[in-house]
């Protein structure tokens, strides 16, 4: 199960890098990151973690509500 956790972490990390790279790095006339690209990547990472955290909170609430309201009544 620890292996699974490491894999999950790796996946999250890879997706994060790919997304932030994709969204922020668009200039290939230079070989090094531009200042604005680096800033964008840093904010992208921050924002991704804050978003994931907020989504995680809502996700747990919804899951808890679904578990309680069980069965048919929960789909409203």
């Amino acid at each position, binding site marked *: 199960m620890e292996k699974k956790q490491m894999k999950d972490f790796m996946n999250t990390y890879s997706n994060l890098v790919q997304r932030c790279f994709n*969204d922020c790095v668009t200039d290939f006339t230079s070989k090094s990151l531009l200042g604005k690209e680096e800033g964008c990547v840093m904010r992208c990472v921050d924002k991704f973690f804050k978003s994931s955290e907020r989504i995680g909170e809502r996700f747990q609430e919804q899951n808890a509500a679904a578990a309680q309201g069980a069965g048919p009544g929960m789909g409203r």
Partner: protein
Amino acid sequence: MSFLFGGPRPQPSSAEKIAAAEAEIEMVSNMFNQLVDTCTRKCIPSQYREADLNKGESVCLDRCVAKFFEVNVKVSEKMQGEAAQRGGAAGGGMFGS
């Protein structure tokens, strides 16, 4: 994720129970990853002008999660309904009622 595996069923063997539990864990984990992927795409502009979530983005994420759950419920109810129609008496299938 009770809406996905709900309803009474014939008692499963313990191997079946474990397989179902593992599948459920993976399902929940996948669903969460999809949620993050989908809702950030829907709610967070890709310019990343600020590191913090602003009010509008936060509210959008909350609503996105709520709607995503609702869609899951609707889709799984629909699939259960159709499986019940087809499967008839037999039961025991993935979405058997």
